[in-house]
Every structure is written in structure tokens, then in C-alpha cells.
């Protein structure tokens, strides 16, 4: 399968400390590639480094163009949308303002409105007063409303109620049908539902790459993620 994003030798530091070290992997041009690893192995930092939110070195090629020296907003303008860990909605802005700010082309605005009707009802509400699930909807809507060429989604189901996890998973599956996605996710059921490929990090480095189902059913799950694959999947 061809790759939409090629990452080679990517490293990043936070306050002088190496958090991503010489990472290399591809994101497939279709479907969901999952980035896995235990807490604190540098998954979120890898995504932030791809976007230039963290200072980084190495080579990142997106659709044939080097983006590793670009400023964050230029990378996003090329069609890479970001759903951050912990939502990061603008709490003092209303839901409508959050969405207006995120609108680049707004191609899928109506589709997103149908996906999350609740946001329309709460358009005038301050985003900071929403529940965690609603904030995640705002965060997803901000990304999904535009015509993207790649989605970077960081822990979208973290801390959500099971019912909302289902909603979010469905929304992501819909989105993944038209846009390739790099997904960081702790919930292995969600990974099983969405991803076809996994990239596993440990200590800031890639330790495994391969088909998702094969990995999730193997003992490697236990070694790299510290969970019994079968239990988690069940």
C-alpha cells in the first residue's frame, strides 16, 4: 500500500529531554494506521513533532513534499487536520466560535452538523462549560468539517463514557473512509475496529510495525503494551 506520510529519523525534545528518538514509519494512503505504546512512550509527542508543535529534526514527507521545516499552520493548510489529546477546545469561546475558527474550506460542515446535532443546539454555549464528550465532539468537528488529506487523531476516546466511545468510533470510521488517518489510541477495541496497520513505540522508538489484527492477537501486545491481548479485545 502506498504511503501518504513518510517519517524518517524523526527526533524531538522537550526542555532538553529527548522524547522522540529517531522514529521511522509510514502512514498508509488509505484507512487507519494506529500508533500504539504504553503511557509516556512519546506517541503524542510524535504527532506534535510531525505538526511542528514540538521542535524536531528528521525527515517528514507528506504527499511528496518535505514538511519537517514548515511552520505548523502551513502544514495544516496543506490538508493535515489535528485532533489533540485532551480536546483543547477554546473554553472561553462559544461552540460556534470554535467551529468558525477552525473552518478552512468547510466542505463537510453540513455532514458534521448531522453527525453531531448536539453541537448545533449548543452553538451559543461556552465550550469550557461542555461535558468531556461534548468537547470531544467540538474537537472532532473542528477537524472533520474541512476537506483534509490526512487526519492526526490523538486519544479520541480517552476519559469518555462507553456510549460516547461508540459515537466517536463511528464518526472516525466514516471519516477514515475518505481520509487516511494516524490514530493514537489506548482502547484496543477501538484500534481493532478501525486500524489496519499498527506502529508500536517504546522508549521513544519504533519497536514493531505490521498488520493490526495480527499484532493484537499476538503475545507482542503484552510485551509492548503491558496488556493481555485477548482479554482487552474481549
Amino acid at each position: 500500500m502506498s504511503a501518504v506520510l513518510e517519517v524518517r529519523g524523526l527526533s524531538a525534545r522537550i526542555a532538553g529531554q529527548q522524547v522522540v528518538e529517531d522514529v521511522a514509519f509510514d502512514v498508509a494512503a488509505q484507512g487507519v494506521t494506529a500508533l500504539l505504546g504504553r503511557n509516556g512512550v512519546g506517541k503524542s509527542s510524535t504527532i506534535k513533532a510531525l505538526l511542528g508543535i514540538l521542535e524536531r529534526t528528521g525527515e517528514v514527507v507528506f504527499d511528496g513534499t518535505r514538511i519537517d521545516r514548515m511552520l505548523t499552520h502551513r502544514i495544516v493548510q496543506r490538508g493535515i487536520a489535528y485532533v489533540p489529546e485532551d480536546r483543547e477546545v477554546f473554553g472561553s469561546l462559544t461552540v460556534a466560535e470554535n467551529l468558525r475558527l477552525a473552518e478552512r474550506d468547510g466542505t463537510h460542515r453540513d455532514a458534521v452538523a448531522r453527525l453531531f446535532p448536539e453541537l448545533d443546539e449548543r452553538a451559543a454555549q461556552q465550550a469550557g462549560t461542555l461535558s468531556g464528550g461534548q468537547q470531544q465532539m467540538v474537537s472532532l468537528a473542528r477537524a472533520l468539517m474541512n476537506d483534509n488529506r490526512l487526519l492526526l487523531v490523538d486519544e479520541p476516546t480517552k476519559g469518555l463514557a462507553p456510549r460516547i466511545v461508540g459515537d466517536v468510533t463511528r464518526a472516525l470510521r466514516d471519516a477514515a473512509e475518505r481520509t487516511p488517518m494516524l490514530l493514537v489510541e489506548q482502547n484496543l477495541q477501538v484500534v481493532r475496529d478501525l486500524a489496519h496497520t499498527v506502529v508500536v513505540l517504546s522508549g521513544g522508538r519504533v519497536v514493531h510495525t505490521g498488520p493490526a489484527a495480527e499484532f493484537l492477537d499476538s503475545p507482542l501486545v503484552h510485551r509492548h503494551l503491558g496488556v493481555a491481548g485477548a482479554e482487552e479485545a474481549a
Partner: protein
Amino acid sequence: MSTLLLLLITGVGLGALYFLVASGLSLIYGLMGVLNFAHGSFLTLAGFLGWEVGRRVGDGTWGGLLAGMLVGLVVGALVAAVTELVFIRRLYQRHIEQVLVTVGLGLATVALFEGIWGTDPIRIAKPAWLGGTTDVLGASVPNDRWLLIGAAAVVLGLIVLFLRATPYGLVIRAGVENRTMVTALGIDVRRAFTVVFAIGGAAAGLGGVLASVYYGQVSAHQGTSLLIYAFIVTVIGGLGSLAGAAVASVLVAVIQQLANFYLGGTGDLAVVLALAAVLLVRPRGLLGKAAAR
């Protein structure tokens, strides 16, 4: 009673002046994380140029004053925008260097102003009415205080309107909250930086012209001395909070006036104590966010 009323009104007048300087400082810090030590120079330059134009239009007349205020606004906005584009932008994301550059610019420009306009303050003429007083319930309030209060209220209203009703305002409000996420939505936040500098510069420029009315003189050091109070106001109000800057401006100026009158000229010390107290009890300031991003 009338003395207290007088002190309160003059305090609000002085607070209006502080607000004109502090509003820009607070917005700039809130959005960019830069404490702008050159802000006082925007004020001083606008004060001088406003005076130069005003006295040619009509020394001591309303026409001259209005022309001066207009010049002050424009000069402040332009100089601030140029400062951001030429010096600050090159050091994108390097906050300490950005602060250092503004320190250098602040020192250098004050010296330059001294070279051009001399080290001694220049007395200025103002419209006769501004030199008079108005009787409010027995208190003779100097009329220039009304001008200051009015101007600051208009500026506050305009900035709020700008922040609420324009696309740039939206970017700025979002950026004050979480600058990184704004760029992660594909928005070039640097353009908002220039806008914020221009707005802050315009307010400071107007403040410069009005400060010369308030003090009856212009001098190369006017901006520097006001800047320190504006810093204090900004920190007390909460860095990045416009409302905080407005509240703290009045609070600081009133405390200063009261202490000066009732506690034997200890206004400056009272202000410093207020700052220390606020920082120790509530380090983020009165209306500041919990943590800066």
C-alpha cells in the same frame, strides 16, 4: 467627603491613563508571551509627535489637541506594528530574546528622544477648559480627568468590539487562551501578533498624548515611568486579561491617590505592596487564567 470624592475621581482619571498603556501590554503578553519593554517608547514618541503636530495646528486649542490625539493613535499603531515586524517576528517562539530586544529598544529609543527633544520636560499648552475644574457634589474635579476617563472608556469599548465582532478578534481571543492550538487549526497566528501590537501601540500612543495633557508636559522619560505602573497593573489584573487590566488600572490608581493623600505621599509604596500582596495570595492576578499557555 468631597475630598474623598475628588480623590476617587482623579484616581479613576489616572487609572484611565494606566489602562491605555496596560491594555496593550496585557493583550500582547496574553497572545505572544512577550513582556514589551518598548511599550513606553511607543507612548513617548506618540506624545512628542502629537505635540509637534498639535502645536502647529493650533497651540492650546481643541483642534490642536484632537489633531495631536489622532497623530498619537496613528504613530503608536505604526511604530508598534513595525517593531513587531522587524524585531519581534524574527525571534518567533523565542520569548526571552523577544523580551531582551524590547529592553534594548526601550533603552535606545529613550536616549534617542533625549537627543532629539532634550533631557528637560517641555511644557505644553492645553485648551483652557481642560485647565479648569468642575464642581461635583462639592469636589472641584480637574476637567482633564474627564477627557482621560472618556478616552479610556471609548478605547475599552472599541477593543472589546474588535475582539468580539471581527475575525481577527476571534483569533486573538483564541490565541490568548491557547496559541499552539490556533496554529494547529491552520491559522497564521503571527498576523494576529502584528494586529495586537498595532492596537496596543495605538492605545499607548493616545495615552502618550493624553499623558502630556495630564502632566502638562512631554518628556523623554514619560513612557518609562508610566510603563512601570502599567506593568504592575497588568500583573495585578492578570496577564492577558483585558477586563483585569481595566479593573486593576482603576484599583491601582485609586490606591495610589488615597495613600498619597492620607498616608503622607506613600502612593508608590502602597502600589508595590498591593502588587506583592496580590502575587502572594493569587499569583495569576485578579482575573488571570490559571496557567499561561
